[in-house]
């Protein structure tokens, strides 16, 4: 954005194609508008961007490092590459590392066939995990009357944390621990069922990209989600203010 808050129009190149963008847009937004495919997991339309999953990495001319498209703002004359062998390699490796961190057994998962991680893995051609699995032992938290949290499938995208804080305003969720020890917690690490702040709205369940959060009573492959409600909800709220 320009210093005086005025929105400007920039021209940039994506994969060699000239496109124009508003100065308040992210590279990801512009790419999507122009139908360049960039895989994402932690990004969700309607929530803030945190650049956690690193799947949306792109190359920007003049930058030594790869940059996450979801948190990088556009600039004038920027040259972005969304697809090449190096990016494909990094994206695959990122997905493989996500799989190796927890226990993903798609065939018996509530989210089978409705899972963003699974969908992206198929799309990016993952057929082997080349790093050893860690097989961590995580208990399932089924103490909530309506929902289940299964850390075994959590990819730490923090969509649940953000939606609960930014949209619902309840801030039930947080991330505890660092690095490989990190995990999502409810109400400062109390069982979800005992969280007084939880309004039981189910937004977290609906934005979770995988089978980590699900409605109780759903069987295998029945965890369909409605995450499209978010942009609509935020737009309606802005109108009211």
């Amino acid at each position, binding site marked *: 954005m320009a210093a005086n808050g005025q929105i400007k129009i920039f021209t940039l190149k994506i994969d060699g194609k000239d496109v124009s963008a508003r100065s308040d847009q992210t590279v990801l937004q512009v790419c999507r508008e122009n139908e360049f495919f960039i895989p994402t997991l932690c990004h969700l339309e309607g929530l803030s961007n945190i650049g956690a999953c690193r799947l949306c990495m792109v190359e920007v001319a003049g930058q030594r490092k790869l940059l996450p498209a979801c948190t990088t703002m556009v600039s004038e004359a920027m040259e972005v590459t969304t697809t090449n062998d190096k990016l494909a390699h990094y994206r695959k490796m990122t997905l493989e590392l996500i799989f190796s961190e927890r226990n993903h057994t798609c*065939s*018996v998962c*509530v989210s*089978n066939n409705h899972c963003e991680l699974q969908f992206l893995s198929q799309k990016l051609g993952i057929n082997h995990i080349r790093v050893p699995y860690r097989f961590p032992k995580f*208990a*399932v938290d*089924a*103490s909530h009357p309506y929902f*289940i949290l*299964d850390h075994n499938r959590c990819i730490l995208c923090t969509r649940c944390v953000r939606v609960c804080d930014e949209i619902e305003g309840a801030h039930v969720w947080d991330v505890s621990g660092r690095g490989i020890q990190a995990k999502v917690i409810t109400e400062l690490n109390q069982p979800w*069922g005992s969280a007084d702040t939880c309004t039981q709205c189910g937004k977290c369940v609906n934005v979770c990209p995988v089978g980590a959060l699900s409605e*109780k*009573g*759903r*069987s*295998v*492959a*029945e965890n369909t989600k409605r995450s499209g409600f978010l942009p609509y909800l935020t737009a309606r709220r802005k109108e009211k203010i």
Partner: protein
Amino acid sequence: MPKTITIDPVTRIEGHAKITIYVDDNGTISDAQFHVTQLRGFEKLSEGRPFTEMPSLMARICGICPVSHLMASAKACDNLMAVKVPVTGHNLRKVMNMAQIIQSHALSFFHLSSPDLLLGMDADPAIRNILGVAAKRPELAKDGIRLRQIGQQMIELLGGKRIHPSWVVPGGVNAALTAEHRAAMLKEMPEIKEIVRRALNWYHPVVKHYQEEIAVFANFPTLFMGLVNKNGEVEYYDGTLRFMDSAGNIVSDGIDPSEYDTWIGEKVESYSYLKSVFYKPMGYPGGIYRVGPLARLNIASKCGTPLADEELAGFRSIQKGPVSSSFHYHYARLIEILNCAERVEDILKDDECMNPHVRAIANPNCFDGVGVSEAPRGTLIHHYRIDENGLIKWANLIIATGHNNLAMNRGVLQVARHYLDGLNPKEGMLNRIEAVIRTFDPCLSCSTHAAGQMPMQIDIQAPNGEILKTITR
């Protein structure tokens, strides 16, 4: 000097099994043991999982009979929820269960056992397989393949997937039947009946040549167990448990499946990971019993459908009282296929099968649930306990092959005694040991290997571990 003969591995069975035959100082066989050397641990790994995952998780126990596990597991979950499953939900599950029995029996009879029957137990193993059958009697092989295909297609039409459908859920099934799929299934029933008719016409004269095998293929008195419906007829999905003794007396009847452990005991033997199951009132191992097609036809008053009952009369004429030779599992399988086709037809002809209400929804309301169904190979029991949040605390499974374990061991002993002369096996002993196991179609036998021979090795071992003789083929 006592010696040990080991057959390892026994193949054309799923999983790993091994046989040891013990020979005493006089060269006579003292015992035979059928070892299942694989530990699956499904009971353990289900601990802590939401009960709603159980049907699909448990179906992974087996790639050939996943549907049977789906049924027993879903029924156990119904009981955890304490719901009344809608009639159509039950009926559609029944259709899938019977489709499973049809395809599995087809595999057992045509692919795995017909080579022995058509080409002879002593035929060259290189041709004694379904390909050999196809060469000698193409229409028999074709019928078998077609029958299996029909069963598999029915499972796919109902569940959307052949091998591990997730359509069967706690409380019922998750999608109603479509008119198109109903018609597609109904259309196949006459062909199933024709195929079985042709198979029976072929089987009846052929079986006359196998009197020696009939006499020693696990042919001894045991109890029989299975489900029967409220009219005492053969039942594959619901009903109550019945035990019949070797003389044909019904010794326990109307047993609610949830009380199975009052009647059924499980014993762990150090030689096998497969538990030996017995009828408690008669103790171990006296309470030996058999389950599966032979047992189901023995214990029931009738099949309850016209064509199957006609054929059942022939089955009953084999001997007075319950049929005791496990060789006749083959015949019983054909009759059951007929029975299933007729029953599927009955369900699908009734418009009730199109009722869209196929599932009951509820949270868990009971902490303990038992589900019983008849798998192709026999009674299958799933028993779960959950905590107040619906997570599995404990699970116990009794599979068909477990019920038959004692009888299989004894069957191997009987065949070995008949065909082993001192340390020297008579011609064809290995083939017959493998064939007697196959009559039970043990669940560890299901998978693959429809073509190809069973590589077998017998080690004759001195007590000090020295191998005195090795016979391989």
